[in-house]
């Protein structure tokens, strides 16, 4: 039947379209670890082993980080270095959520931001037992595990 034939053609077209889309994505931003320059590789060192497994758009984001990094003061650079590992180990879903909440935080009224910063300062100064207590009281702020900064 003509309809069946047409249906088969459409299915085939769909599959090729999907394949093509994936293929294009691969070729367009194919940046193997070897193609990065020294500065980039220095910043993204923690990701060296996982680099090839990252999806193209994930690599692009990481490269963005590497690009922004030189513009930052030293202490911030240090933070980026320290946190890059755990960042790369998160799922894309978690990272998306993190980005959203980061924006939400930025739009908080100044006193709220200050309040949160104070709480974290307190946390960092506290003993392990005290930190455990704080985590139990406010898991929404301090999480459920001790985070090494």
């Amino acid at each position: 039947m003509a309809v069946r034939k047409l249906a088969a053609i459409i299915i085939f077209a769909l599959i090729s379209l999907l394949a093509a889309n994936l293929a294009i994505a691969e070729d367009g931003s194919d940046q193997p670890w070897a193609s990065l320059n020294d500065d980039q590789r220095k910043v993204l060192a923690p990701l060296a082993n996982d680099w090839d497994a990252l999806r193209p758009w994930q690599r692009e984001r990481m490269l963005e980080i590497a690009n922004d990094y030189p513009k930052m003061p030293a202490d911030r650079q240090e933070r980026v270095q320290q946190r890059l590992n755990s960042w790369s180990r998160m799922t894309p879903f978690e990272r998306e959520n993190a980005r959203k909440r980061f924006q939400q935080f930025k739009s908080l009224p100044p006193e709220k931001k200050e309040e949160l910063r104070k709480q974290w300062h307190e946390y960092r100064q506290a003993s392990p037992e005290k930190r455990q207590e704080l985590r139990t009281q406010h898991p929404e702020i301090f999480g459920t595990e001790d985070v090494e900064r």
Partner: protein
Amino acid sequence: MKIDPENQQVELGYQVIAKRITSLLDEQASNIDAKAASKLSYARQQALANMAKPSSGMSISQNGVIRLFGNYWYQHRLLLTLLMCTLSLLALLARHNMVNQEEAEQGDAYLLASDFPPEVYSNEGFGTWLSENSQQ
């Protein structure tokens, strides 16, 4: 196999009755009322008119209402479903691409360089805290 003559006789008798019954039914069928007969005749004409024109898309129902393309879409509903799926998939892909581009403009470096580790932002409960505190 035993041949049961009496049973056979009965069976034959039944066969005869069956044929006689159906000949009576035939008579009955040939005497249906004129209105029904004319409707059947009309239906036959309609059916013949639609012969060899399977997907013209036009059909005239009994009420004389022309169902333009109604039948056509029903017949090709498989095709239509596939078309819809293709379009939705394309839309999804396009949106995904666009979202990717959008996100690439925001720097993750600033998130990582901020006051708190990324675990804070990825914390589900933090989202709740944020909603509560942004309203006050």
